[in-house]
């Protein structure tokens, strides 16, 4: 298993990607079934070779093959096996390989599950996936070879970036990529629809479960990243509005808008052009994220080592893929608004407003992220845009969404019943106000916390009222179709998330202290007692480990062990200690010894008390679950294409303008 075989596998995969990307599209255009039939075997073969390349790289890590430059740079003899596996995607080249592998997983799944799609359409979809794969395989082969040799072979390697040596971080990139790349499916569907002239909207129904699943993965990836930043960095924060975080957040926002737009298009036939455009945007923003992280154009804590050559390559790829898609959109998108009409008070209007806010929020994040670059380009001076900017504008843009959420399911398509809405508003409003008043006593009038409680109750009551209504009115088994259950879960997730954010932001206590062994410091009713520091050894690090005992009313609540680790190349990394709880986290980070001689043994410590912080990720997980549950709806499984597409075409034919 020499690494050169890995290179060969990548080249073969590239050739198959060319076959998959070019031949079926020609076949679909010319009506040549033989060419269309190339798509599936080519996709399968490509996946096999990419998996082989990935396996060879992982194998090189497992058996310490430091003759491979990438392995030597990112691992060493002391690195435990699980981090050597994670090291495969620990830097640019390998993470790109992971990206391609995941693209192949989605393609294979698509190839396997698309047998019931019309042949021409399936060929186009798989062809577009192939075109995307061509770009990424060319990128890795020509600019980022993970199998390059390092001769003479060093006796030991360097190290995996210690920041990445954490369970959260091993898990975060694959899941995040599942989300990023998953949007390629919705993208391929809409490009295929545009290529085919989009005479029917059935493709939207086929695309929906893929979009929901991809969004679910992206949500999980972001949650994992945020949790990692919280637990690992020792800053106690969970979101920093760093360009790289924003790069994952933009497709998430657009994806959320897309999920709702697809619902309108599928069920009512309206908004077709917008749904197409959003599908393109969601994947384009995923590609943009890759560009931002790897080109070095923006300054970020998380960026990969940058190389202008790579930047140029991705930019060219981005220009071709996204520019080409948008041009295609301009030429082929449906010109006439279709779909069933609706009144001003209707679910369509509410979803449109939601879409507008989500899309504007994504645009705001894009503007804020790129503005420093724009400042350089237009000679406006060096500018920093950070949390205060996003933290002001984002909640403002999301306020209407939160206000609309409880009404969502109560709003009928086409024409909603105003009386029911008033009733919901009244009940949710009274509940929210009552809870806010009670909360105000507990939080000593902290406005942000009170607002958080009110918003949460407002949304949650709306969701629960609807669940209750279905329970009462319908027989068992018909109450909660998966699609609806998913929506309810995700909306409940929003409520939980809002609580987490606003309560933890406003009620957290952070305190830096100097403590000698035996001394304590009290915050938020907890006494943190410092019991000294001792040395501990890990597989590839040594650490000063503090012992902090937390007491409440004299009873021990937790014994915590914050560490300050030193890794192979003398990189220092804090390992915070977190005592997690449903209603509060206790969190301790170890600083430095207070003086050089350290007679007393006093250390600097940072103590946190973070109420409800776990609800942030809990809310995220509920949203993820909502996405997955929704994707599993039986209704989305393709039954008989011929009949369905005929019905769909029939339903909207009157508004159709042949492209």
């Amino acid at each position, binding site marked *: 298993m020499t690494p050169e075989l890995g290179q060969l596998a990548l080249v073969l995969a590239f050739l198959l990607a060319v076959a998959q990307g070019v031949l079926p599209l020609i076949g679909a255009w010319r009506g040549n079934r033989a060419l269309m039939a190339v798509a599936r075997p080519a996709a399968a073969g490509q996946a096999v070779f990419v998996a082989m390349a990935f396996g060879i790289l992982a194998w090189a890590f497992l058996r310490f093959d430091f003759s491979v430059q990438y392995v030597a740079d990112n691992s060493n003899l002391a690195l435990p096996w699980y981090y050597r596996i994670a090291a495969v995607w620990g830097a640019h080249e390998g993470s790109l390989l992971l990206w391609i592998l995941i693209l192949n997983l989605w393609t294979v799944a698509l190839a396997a599950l698309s047998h019931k799609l019309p042949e021409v359409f399936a060929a186009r979809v798989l062809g577009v996936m192939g075109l995307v794969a061509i770009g990424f395989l060319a990128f890795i082969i020509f600019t980022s070879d993970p199998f390059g040799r390092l001769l003479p072979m060093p006796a030991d390697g360097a190290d995996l970036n210690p920041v990445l040596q954490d369970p959260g971080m091993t898990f975060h990139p694959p899941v995040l990529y599942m989300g990023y790349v998953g949007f390629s499916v919705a993208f391929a569907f809409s490009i295929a629809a545009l290529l085919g002239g989009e005479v029917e909207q059935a493709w939207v129904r086929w695309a929906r479960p893929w979009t929901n699943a991809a969004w679910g993965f992206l949500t999980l990836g972001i949650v994992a990243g945020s949790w990692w930043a919280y637990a690992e960095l020792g800053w106690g924060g969970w979101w920093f509005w760093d360009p790289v975080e924003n790069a994952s957040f933009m497709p998430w926002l657009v994806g959320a808008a897309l999920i709702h737009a697809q619902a309108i298009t599928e069920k009512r036939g309206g908004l077709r052009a917008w749904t197409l455009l959003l599908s393109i945007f969601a994947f384009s923003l995923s590609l943009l994220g890759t560009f931002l992280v790897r080109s070095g154009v923006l*300054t970020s804590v998380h960026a990969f080592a940058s190389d202008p050559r790579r930047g140029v390559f991705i930019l060219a790829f*981005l220009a071709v893929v996204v520019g080409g898609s948008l041009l295609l959109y301009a030429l082929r998108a449906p010109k006439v608004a279709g779909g069933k009409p609706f009144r001003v008070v209707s679910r369509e209007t509410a979803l449109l407003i939601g879409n507008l806010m989500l899309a504007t929020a994504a645009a705001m994040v894009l503007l804020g992220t790129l503005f420093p670059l724009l400042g350089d380009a237009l000679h406006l001076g060096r500018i920093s845009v950070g949390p205060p900017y996003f933290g002001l504008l984002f909640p403002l843009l999301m306020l209407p969404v939160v206000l609309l959420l409880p009404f969502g399911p109560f709003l009928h398509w086409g024409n909603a019943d105003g009386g029911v809405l008033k009733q919901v508003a009244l009940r949710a409003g009274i509940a929210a106000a009552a809870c806010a008043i009670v909360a105000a006593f507990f939080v000593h009038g902290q406005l942000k916390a009170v607002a958080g409680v009110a918003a949460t109750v407002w949304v949650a009551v709306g969701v629960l009222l609807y669940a209750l209504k279905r329970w009462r009115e319908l027989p068992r088994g018909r109450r909660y179709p998966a699609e609806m259950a998913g929506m309810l879960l995700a909306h409940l997730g929003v409520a939980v998330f809002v609580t987490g954010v606003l309560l933890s932001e406003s009620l957290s206590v952070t305190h830096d202290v100097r403590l000698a062994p035996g001394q304590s410091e009290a915050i938020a009713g907890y006494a943190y007692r410092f019991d000294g520091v001792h040395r501990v050894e890990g597989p590839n690090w040594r650490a000063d480990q503090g012992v902090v005992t937390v007491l409440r009313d004299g009873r021990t609540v937790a014994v915590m062990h914050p560490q300050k680790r030193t890794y192979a190349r003398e990189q220092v990394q804090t390992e915070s200690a977190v005592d997690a709880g449903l209603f509060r986290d206790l969190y301790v980070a170890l600083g430095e010894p207070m003086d050089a001689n350290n007679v007393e043994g006093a250390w600097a410590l940072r103590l946190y008390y973070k109420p409800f912080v776990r609800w942030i990720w809990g809310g995220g997980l509920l949203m993820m679950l909502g996405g997955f549950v929704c994707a599993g709806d039986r209704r989305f499984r393709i039954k008989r294409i011929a009949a369905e597409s005929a019905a769909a075409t029939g339903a909207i034919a009157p508004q159709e303008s042949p492209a």
Partner: protein
Amino acid sequence: MKRLLPFLVFMGLVGLFGFGIWWNTWHDARYVPSPLIGKPAPDFALPKLDAPGQTVTKASLLGKPYLLNVFASWCVACAEEHPVLMADARQLGIPLVGYDYKDEPDDARRWLREHGSPYDLVIADQPGRTAIDFGVYGAPESFLIDAKGVIRYKHIGPLTPEVIAKELLPAIAAAKREAP
């Protein structure tokens, strides 16, 4: 036309990113121009490195232009800049004042002994407090201060013969013209 809008906006973005790549190949992302250019240098009173009892103030250096060069013995890029200063300091035609930044005086003195000193005078700012007034953030940095005590030019990073010829010498000439 309306449908072409996303394409056009995107092409604008591509242009911006192209600019970003090009810009980053010859700019350090952390280079931030000083707001102090054209403004009076901050008042300072710092000890001489060689004679800690003697204090040098802004006022005591007024009267003719000088180049204030921020360096430190721990600063890797300063070692790179040092031979350039040794070779070209005389040709500047103005005094070169060394500003030893956040350094152990002993380390700095040893460093200058080993490498040789291009400076006419070295002042020491061990706590780094005055450096904040100068907006110093990454040694080496060089400030051209004119006869009236106004900062005329600042270079962040090591001076190179090219920078000296293209930027510093013309700035010195301009400063001299105005206040000989």
